[in-house]
């Protein structure tokens, strides 16, 4: 199965971010919107990764 580089970037980034941020997000004294910040980071990286067409696309 072929995974395009853009998707691979998102997968690896999301996985690493999830590993690094779980404790931070779940801290009892932490702000309630922390999961949204983490999600926003993933979306920003996705926007960057998909900024141009992959040559295999239609």
């Amino acid at each position, binding site marked *: *199965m*072929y*995974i*395009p580089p*853009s*998707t691979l970037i*998102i*997968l690896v980034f*999301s996985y690493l971010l999830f590993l690094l941020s779980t404790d931070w997000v*779940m801290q*009892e004294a932490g*702000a*309630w*919107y922390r*999961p*949204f910040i983490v*999600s*926003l980071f*993933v*979306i920003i990286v*996705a*926007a960057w990764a*998909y900024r141009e*067409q*992959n*040559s*295999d*696309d*239609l």
Partner: protein
Amino acid sequence: MIFDLSTLFGLGVAYLAILFGIAFVTDRGWIPQRITQHPLVYVLSLGVFASVWSYYAATGNAFRDGFGYLAPFIGISLAFLLSPLMLRPILNITKSYQLSSMADLLAFRYRSPWAGTLTTLVMLIGVTPLLSLQIQAVANTVGILTTEASQTTLAITFCLLITLFAIFFGTGRGSGREKHEGLVLAIAFESVVKLFALLAVGLFSVYAGFGGFDAMNQWLIEQPELLRQLKEPSPPGTFQITALLFFTAAVAMPHMFYMTFNENNDPKALNLASWALPLYFLLLSLPVFPILWAGLKSGSTSPMEYYPVTMGIEYNSEIFTLIGFIGGVSAASGLIIVITLALSTMCLNHLILPIYQPNAGQNIYRWLLWRRRLLITALIWGGFLFYYLPDDKLSVRAIGNVAFIASLQFLPAIIALLYWPRGNKKGFLAGLSIGIAIWFVFLMLPVATGTNYFTLANLSSREIIALSLICNVTLFVLVSLFTRSSDEEKASADICSLDTLRRRNQSGLSAKSPQEFIAKLTKPLGQRTATREVLKALADLKIDSQESRPHAMRLLRGRLEANLSGLLGPAIAHDLIDRFLPYNIQSDNYSTDINVIESRIEAYRSNLSGMAADLDNLRRYHRQVLLELPLGVCSLGPQNQIVMWNRALEELTGITNEEVVGSQLDEIGEPWCSIILNFTHGENAHQHKQVVQVKGSKRYISLHKAVIEKSSAHQIQQDGVVILLEDLTETELLEEELTHSERLASIGRLAAGVAHEIGNPITGIACLAQNIRDETDSDELRSMARQIIEQTDRTSRIVQSLVNFAHSGSHLTEKTREIVDIEECIDEAIALISLNKKSKDIRYKIACFPGARMLGDSQRLLQVLVNLINNAQDASPAHSTITIECKKIASSVEISVSDEGSGIPETIKDRVFEPFFTTKEPGEGTGLGLSLVYSIVENLDGHIDIMSPTRQSENPGTRVILSFPCYDEAKVEQ
């Protein structure tokens, strides 16, 4: 706070009227296409997925599950973030084959009408409660806001308006295959409305409920129990199952499939949706907590699900109550419209058409349109009945939630569709059946009846979901591994699998022209529909209606199947095309086809790295060498299938690579088919200078062949012949010209010898005859002597001509190079010819560009012109015109002499330059004039050409064209 029913009704109707208005002006083309087809509109239209579950249910879920309520948002976002893995390949397939629903896709992939029917039935069961949930949400909301009318009346009004909208803007007036831009823009508008409504209510909740964000945070710190609930992990697997469910729903749910694939105008828009839709869902999920907390703080007694609407009531704001209400209406209405449109097509294609099809005499488009409209109405009102009939409204919600889970059972089939070509219809049907059976018995039945008929070791719902999925996958894999796939299924699997590409069957077709296509399709579709469909397919492919080449006919067949698939579904379309437009020979499963292997590698070239990339570069280099080889290369596979057709061969034959690769050799047309076929079957490995007539001109081809032995690699089972075609026409023409020149030269030498040998005795005879004439007294003798002198004069003139001819080819070293004024030469030639008293009454038309000059010998050019004008004069009827033109063409000067005679017969055209060849009466010409002209022109570095008849259709005469290098002063000085 209680609202008037009229206010709510007016607001609801006004909102739906705005939707009608948007759809109407868009369909009329009043909104520019750059707006209606903007990728952002597509992204927002996908927001249809955020229905009641995200607008209402999210608040209750957030209270119960804490951050677990984000699972649906994360599931659907993941599907789009990872779109290249699932959504994009499916988009490519659906676009190529016009597949409009999940049922179409599965029926196409597994080549089984049962796959489509089963999928439609499961979706119908899963989606009807979902429809009723939307109706219930709107009715309940109104019930909270007013006590004036029964909720049922409101639900009926709402359903009525939605039905009208879906019928007017969802079904269109065409064949049903067209895009619904009005609908898409209206749905995009709805997405904006619900996002704006939820964000506005969220902000209102923060400021009205707490007085600001800091105060809200402070209040939250004072609620340790709430904070604990918020961050408390859900039971193991719950989050993952929910996320997986919504991940699958992104493709499996009819409304998402419809919007993502059917209404997609530009595949690139999916790139934007890959991150913009997750952003949309992020924004949509953001205000859920503030709304929940503001509701809890206010001590609201309303159900938590309706907090987005009741916040305005709790904090005394009519405007925010109405904003919340409109947001809820938009969330519910969008989903109902799109889901019924999608489901109506599925029901039509997979439940109705397999049982009953319109006969050929009917207007199929109209028939389909009305069936679709009836189905939309039936579905919406079916949803209403599902809401209305049960007494316990809570059970409707529970059934809706459980029904939604059914879509998860399609996940194995979707993954296999893209990534596991081995999966077959038996496996799919077995897996789906067991999964659905477990879902129905252990989840649906207890919720629908309130009784547990069967128990399964006290497993929780999520465990039963996991079990159903595991059983589904296991059975799918096992059955697929132990049963055989049909050839058709294998071909579909190859098309759908990410590792392979679209391929065409290259066998011959029974129908040989578009007219035959129409004739054959008239039986099932009727004359009108068949003609319309064939013409549409021709227009789509930009193929002329007179086209009849096999390649074009195969393309036409493929396009027709795709178009009919959009109209009648893939199962019916495939069956119809297979029955009425069959291939002559069913081609083998061609996974070993060199072209397929090559195109597969080519498509994924950018993904290759390391050794694989090096090998691919090497492959491309070798292929390029063959393609660019200046000799025609044609490689034939088994059964004379054309594997390669290089550029030189394209130029030689005028047949493109695209047209013939993959075809049988006998389909390429004459004369090439016979030449290559005979040579392939012949014993000789080489064949020299075969003459071929191509478009009326003669070509000389040499052929060479080599046999390709079967490869030891099992993937490549090639066993064929490679043929080289060498075009020797140019060489042959040069050789012919050289031979001609040599012959002229030898005749010249012979003529010189003959002239010398004859000249001396003739001179002697003439002298003696003169003596007799002058010295005799006999009149009779004098008369005879005079005749002798006349004959010897004539002989002398012939001899002189021979001498001139002989000398004309042997003066290359003594060329006179002077600047010749061409116009002067033409005038002088005409003056000389006019001296001949026997000349006819001929007009001369001279058109010479000013300053026409060349380098050469003026006397020789004069000789040429006199000869040509003389010939023209002889050929011209009295009172006609001889045109002498002199033009400058690039760096050449072109002199032409045209007459209005009867032209040169085709049979003698090739011989006019031969010495002693003449058509004049004996004694009138020597046949050396044009030969002499030919020699002189060559000596002057020129070229002579004869056009007879001239290109002017009104003149059948002859035009002799002389070309010489033009005199270039600057060049000469250098």
